[in-house]
């Protein structure tokens, strides 16, 4: 078990491209931290540098306060689980799990004891003498986990360990990993491109984009107070809705009407000297069918009339998709860049599609106009040029 800290860590390739730029991060002993971001954001490169599989071009990597930049993977005492599992196909499950211990010249009875313990923990006991080729995807994944835990290492590094499993198994393994980590209390770094995995597993989440740290924080922090447009669009499912707007005299003017902002927000915006052009974000869950919102709560928000073109019923909730016209000549560059990276599909055009998450008791119907209430206290404001969050 150990603390890991990255100080100005940079990965620069010979052609000059930087996969990871000046990354600073302190990981506490026993912490479960998730690196998340779209493909090519540098999360796997960062993990490989911590593992020692890639050289660190600049900066320092410390484990338990000791600089380990120059140490080879075998001297860092870390275990890694790969996306492809990377089981040795010519060895049985038992031999696979014993491999790191044999390399370390551990006595035979100790190896047997540890392999048995890990196999029991992961329900692999009856498969110990089989070869990886004869195992199912989930079993292979567990063998890969087993090979990591027999070591009793300083830290676990997991590189998208669940991406090759089907959806149901993935959810199941997610809880297994969570439980395992709580039990073993080993510092864990987990890399994924799936924000749901990140939200459910991590004590803290590091969001990366193009090699740069966007935000570090607990899942709730990232959800409630995204530091910028990118984090806002990446975290949450369905993603946050975005629309350009204008700030003037404590009012927000945007295609869904003029909305008075809470006094606290206005004060902070003034302090920050916020620009006039902003991008407004609102999460699908901050909408509701206006007919179902009553009393004082209704006063906290605004009501607009929309016409949903698609309604998706998920049983516990209904997702309503409705078009919203975009204002002309708005500065949308950053928004479109983010949309393309995050994959929210906000295509350039005169309309955006908004998603609202409504209670299943709603009477809304496709193609018929109805009133939607939105919680103006939950609006997120971003600088239209830089994408930075405003008024927080």
């Amino acid at each position, binding site marked *: 078990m150990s603390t890991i800290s990255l100080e100005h860590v940079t990965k620069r390739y010979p052609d000059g491209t930087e996969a990871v730029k000046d990354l600073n991060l302190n990981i506490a002993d026993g912490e479960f931290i998730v690196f998340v971001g779209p493909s090519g954001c540098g999360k796997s490169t960062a993990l490989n540098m911590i593992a020692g599989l890639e050289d660190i071009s600049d900066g320092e990597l410390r484990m338990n306060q000791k600089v380990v930049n120059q140490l080879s993977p075998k001297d860092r005492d870390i275990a890694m689980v790969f996306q492809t599992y*990377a089981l*040795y196909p010519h060895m049985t499950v038992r031999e696979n799990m014993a491999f790191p211990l044999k390399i370390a010249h551990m006595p035979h009875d100790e190896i047997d004891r540890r392999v048995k313990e890990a196999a029991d923990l992961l329900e692999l006991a009856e498969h110990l003498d089989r070869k990886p080729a004869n195992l199912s995807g989930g079993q292979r994944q567990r063998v890969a986990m087993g090979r990591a835990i027999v070591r009793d290492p300083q830290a676990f590094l997991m590189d998208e360990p669940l991406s090759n499993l089907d959806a149901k198994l993935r959810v199941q393994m997610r809880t297994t990993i969570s439980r395992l980590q709580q039990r073993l209390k080993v510092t864990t770094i987990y890399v994924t491109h799936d924000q749901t995995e990140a939200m459910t597993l991590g004590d803290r989440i590091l969001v990366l984009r193009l090699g740069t740290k966007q935000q570090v924080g607990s899942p709730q922090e990232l959800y409630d107070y995204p530091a910028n447009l990118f984090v806002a669009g990446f975290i949450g499912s369905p993603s946050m809705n975005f629309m350009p707007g204008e700030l003037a005299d404590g009012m927000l003017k945007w295609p869904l009407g003029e909305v008075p902002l809470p006094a606290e927000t206005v004060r902070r915006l003034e302090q920050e000297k916020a620009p006039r052009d902003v991008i407004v974000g609102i999460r699908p869950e901050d909408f509701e069918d206006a007919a179902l919102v009553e009393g004082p709560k209704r006063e906290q928000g605004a009501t607009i009339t929309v016409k949903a073109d698609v309604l998706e019923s998920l049983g516990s909730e209904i997702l309503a998709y409705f078009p919203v016209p975009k204002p002309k000549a708005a500065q949308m560059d950053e928004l479109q860049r983010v949309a393309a990276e995050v994959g929210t599909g906000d295509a350039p055009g005169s309309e955006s599609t908004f998603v609202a998450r409504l209670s299943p008791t709603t009477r809304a119907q496709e193609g018929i106009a109805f009133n939607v209430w939105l919680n103006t206290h939950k609006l997120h404001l971003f600088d239209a040029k830089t994408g930075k969050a405003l008024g927080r």
Partner: protein
Amino acid sequence: MTAVAAPAARTARRARTATQPAMPTGRKVGWAAANAITIAWTLFPIWWLIALAFKAPTSLTDGSFWPNQWSWSNFSGIFHGTAFVRPLINSIGIGLISTVISVVLGTMAAYAIARLKFPGKSALIGVSLLIAMFPLISLVTPLFNVERVLGLFNTWPGLIIPYLAFSLPLAIYTLSAFFREIPWDLEKAAKVDGASQRQIFLKVIAPLALPGIATTSILVFMFCWNEFLLAISLTSTNAARTAPAAMGFFTGVSQFTFPIGSIAAAAVIITIPIVIFVMIFQRRIVAGLTAGAVKG
């Protein structure tokens, strides 16, 4: 090449018949006939050779497919004295030594080529392929002179060294294709598991490359075993002359008798090691040894 490809094709065929519905009888008969004709066409010359080898010297030219009288006399003839025995030993020795050296060096070179980035890598591959394609005949005269000066003419190393030069590119090329198939993640996993570069190669990579090593061994051995041009040009006596070359020096009982029976018997004998070699190694050439390493 066919010897190597055959097992894989056979597995594929087996898999296909297992999943496909039964063929209609008409088509089955058609296929059976086509197969029979092809097999007969390929095996006929081999049978002719075997029949010749077993015919008594007096009935050699009777033109029948089946020896009227089975006789070992051709075989006992070639094994009488050292005219064939010594070249056979030379062939086995030179073939095995060349194969071992070539495969060991080739494995290491191919691993480096498949796994490492180093300056001049593509040039190295290019040059080695160029050597493999060089027409042997253009090198015979210079090699003859070089070997005479160095005292290598008519010795085992005198053949082993040029054989290595020609078989190494082949070995490197085939093996690097096999190494490239081995998932890179396995190496990373072994590295994180604490293995040194040597342990990674010996415990993880080499066992997985065994089918490739077996295939390459067969190819290299066959090349050395069958090689005729250098064998006849760079040797002068039975000290280093290999079996194919020696067969060219067979003489009949008198200068007017053609030694066809002895040649046929020798041809049968020199085919046997190839058959044994392929049988030993083909078991290792199991398709999909790396299955299960990655993904589900």
